[in-house]
């Protein structure tokens, strides 16, 4: 009797396991960003003037509002905006890239290109993005 019950319970998990495997890329707790490349608002703020804030959103979103002192760098105008960003960068700076909402990957893409193409070190993505900044704004 107990063995039958255990067997039925195990069978009940089969659809759930199947869906977990099939939809593994959409599991919310799986972040495509390694933890070493993420930074919290508090930590980034603590870097003070050693941090360069980079806004990866669209021109319109940037014009509407942005983190004070942030530089716009998006992929729509990458070639035009990159030199302006590089003019502010120096090797002792830490770059913090942000965009809207946690699910947005614009910041990931900009950070990836700064690391791979421009070969900059110390490039981070802001955990929680623009919304997290707004929540913790002083």
């Amino acid at each position: 009797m107990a063995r039958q019950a255990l067997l039925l319970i195990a069978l009940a998990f089969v659809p759930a396991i199947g869906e977990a495997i099939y939809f593994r890329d959409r599991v919310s707790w799986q972040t495509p960003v390694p933890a070493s490349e993420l930074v919290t608002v508090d930590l980034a703020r603590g870097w003070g003037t050693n941090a360069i804030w980079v806004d990866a959103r669209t021109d319109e979103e940037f014009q509407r509002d942005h983190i004070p002192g942030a530089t716009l760098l998006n992929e729509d105008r990458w070639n035009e905006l990159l030199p302006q960003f590089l003019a502010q960068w120096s090797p002792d700076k830490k770059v913090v890239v942000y965009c809207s909402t946690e699910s947005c990957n614009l910041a990931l893409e900009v950070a990836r290109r700064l690391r791979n193409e421009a070969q900059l070190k110390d490039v981070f993505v802001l955990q929680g993005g623009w919304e997290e900044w707004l929540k913790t704004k002083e």
Partner: protein
Amino acid sequence: MKTRILTFILSILWCAMARAELKWEQTTLELHPAIEDKDAVGHFKYQNTGDKPVRFKSVRTSCGCTVAQTQKDEVPAGEKGEITATFHIGERTGTQIKTVNVETDNPGQAVTVLTLKAVIPQLLEIKPTFVYWQADDAPQAKTISVTAAKDSPVTQIKVTSSNPEFQTKVEKVRKGEFKIDIQPKQTSKPMSATLTIQPENSPKMFNATASVMAVAAAKPMWTPPLMRQAVAPPPGTSPTPASPQP
């Protein structure tokens, strides 16, 4: 025992079948736009396999660079249709993944995530796109590698510097591979240049940046605050604590 297991499996299958109404041909599309394409377009086809109409409540994209359009707001039972997702490539590189969240009034299938994966070909791959010298570094040449896309007809590249203080020399390493040696004349003052890299017989232009950094401001030495010392006040006065030293 066997009957119970069979009943259990059949009930799971029945539940799965009853839930699906809007059936998608594919929810993930991989696109390979051509080098000269400005947009990558994906067609997500569906069919309403249920017996009731399905209404689209919202269709939202993960990025302003992607626009999604439905052909109709409501899909009658048995009808087919498609959602067209247009991804504007802009100046993006590499593999781009954009999603379209489709919300319907079907409670069993409220939100479907459609994924558009675009592999963007690059006529030239430039690495690194930024080279720099610190102030007073030796003004030695640094190298930028340029690799042409496979099967591309690029046999030569032309490099122009926006600042004559940076000298450039282009060398062909092998078919489709080049190296650009760039060297500043001096590193005693900050300056920068934009290198424009153009494949022969192509109007497309690519950029790299070269900079001599400014001297970083000297940071003040950090010293720990001195411990406050209890000092015995002179007779007739109240004790005044020593102020901490910066």
